């Protein structure tokens, strides 16, 4: 397995969890859908239907090539194109940390969807903490960027995310936490977990 394939597979460790939460026929909105691969998986394997939102032109083109319905838009400007409760699930996979207007994004997701599915890298993961203790910004499986080329603009831990949900009146329905190898973490999730995958809803 070459490095690129490894990276892709690692990046998809949350997809099986997300796929497990989607029932046949349900409507899914995938925010930051990239080339549409996750939606394609949900459509083909889970019988879902839906749309992707992508800001990047190459992602839009790739999604069209993938036969995915894709709407080019900037999530940070809200989801005005979409009606209230239009989707069973609104997915934001590994993207919340790249969004500037975090609170508005979460509110918008829960406006257009009955449930939001959010996966976030954990800056509190022990390897990341170790990197900072050693005086360097973390670079890890789920945070693969250098500080100078990262698209991430918000740096938070799973505990931070959960605190924000509490503050915004958002209920966490389910939480799955994975380590850097994509294996489930059952204890000390904010320390041992590299990626958190959440189902959240309005209280």
């Amino acid at each position, binding site marked *: 397995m070459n490095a690129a394939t490894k990276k892709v597979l690692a990046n998809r460790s949350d997809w099986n969890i997300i796929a497990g939460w989607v029932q046949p026929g349900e409507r899914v909105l995938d925010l930051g859908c990239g080339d549409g691969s996750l939606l394609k998986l949900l459509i083909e394997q889970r019988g879902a239907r839906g749309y992707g939102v992508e800001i990047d*032109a190459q992602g839009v*083109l790739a999604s069209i*090539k993938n036969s*995915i*319905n894709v*709407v080019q*838009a900037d999530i940070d400007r809200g989801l*005005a194109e*979409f009606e209230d409760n239009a989707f069973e699930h609104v997915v934001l996979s590994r993207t919340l940390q790249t969004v500037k207007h975090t609170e508005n994004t979460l509110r918008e997701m829960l406006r257009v969807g009955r449930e939001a599915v959010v996966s976030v890298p954990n800056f509190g993961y022990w390897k990341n903490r170790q990197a900072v203790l050693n005086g360097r910004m973390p670079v890890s499986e789920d945070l693969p960027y250098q500080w100078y080329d990262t698209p991430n603009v918000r740096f938070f831990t799973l505990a931070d995310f959960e605190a924000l949900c509490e503050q915004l009146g958002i209920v966490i329905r389910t939480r799955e936490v994975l380590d850097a190898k994509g294996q489930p973490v059952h204890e000390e999730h904010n320390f041992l977990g590299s990626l958190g995958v959440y189902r959240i809803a309005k209280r």
Partner: protein
Amino acid sequence: MTIQTATQTSGVGLVEAQRAHFDEPLTLRSGQVMPAYDLVYETYGTLNADGSNAILVCHALSGHHHVAGHYVDQPKNIGWWDNIIGPGRPLDTDKFFIVGVNNLGGCHGSTGPASINPATGKPWGADFPVVTVIDWVHTQARLADRLGIKCWAAVIGGSLGGMQALRWSVTYPERVKHTIVIAAAPYLTAQNIAFNDVARQAILTDPEFYGGNYYEHNARPVRGLRLARMLGHITYLSDDQMGEKFGRGLRNDNLSFGFDVDFQIESYLHYQGDKFAGYFDANTYLLMTRALDYFDPSREENGDLTAVMRRASSDFLVVSFTTDWRFSPERSREIVSALLAAEKNVSYAEIDLAFGHDSFLLDDPYYHAVIDAYLKKVQA
């Protein structure tokens, strides 16, 4: 600036215009009846046995049926959207059968204000009925019948052509599989109607207009038409692009301290205005701008565009351009929103091109890749 296609090699090569005559009277949206009419059209590629591989290309305000290729006696007269049509191009003539039609009321061969009104034996002139987008769609449907096309694989158009495509999708839902709407809007804003009004006033107040019956006076409202085109042209370009190309550049080195052409932009606009006024019919310009003003399919559902779009059964691709301010991305997003609310399959690309509204005619690799990727999925 205006996209010149004359230097490109033609994808489809030699083409010929054809003419279809329709005797069955057509009741227009206005209630008036066209007793009979001609449509000129061109086709590229081959219609397959079940007539399922046809794409209709709808033209914009000043367009026509000569969409691609060139004529045997006019090698430099290359179709207005030649860059996207041909073997291996996004509108692939190896796969699709492409149809371009000159709209009713046009001035390129289809029955229009300059045609002879059989009732009077004189040119229609001011008596030519006001035609609307839905009227064009009905005439195009009759042409499709004539050509043996039960259902279009796709209907595509930019600007006013995009509005026709949108109209097709809700007027004949069973006859459109894919609708591609480029640089269009669900209806015109007040500002947009205002631009059209100034253009029309320029024509209507030209002393050579003679109430629309200038043909019999051997006159043409060239000045008015020229002004109308100059105004329109400004709105088709982006401020940045105009600044980059012309800036404050002077035609000669010195200011004239008079009102002749000093700036390059003046020279350019005058040239464009003169060229257009030399061949286009002023009455057609009036009709086309009015069709734009009147376009608003949501009227049929008390302003609810979503309710209208629910009638459609096609899939959609909507495309806009970031620097287009005549039909801005916001207007395309209105269409997208309605399609999303109507739960239609839709993709939307907002393409970063510098050429304003005219970008839709541009031979840009990314733009064409988007159209190509979409049409690759379309079953012929």
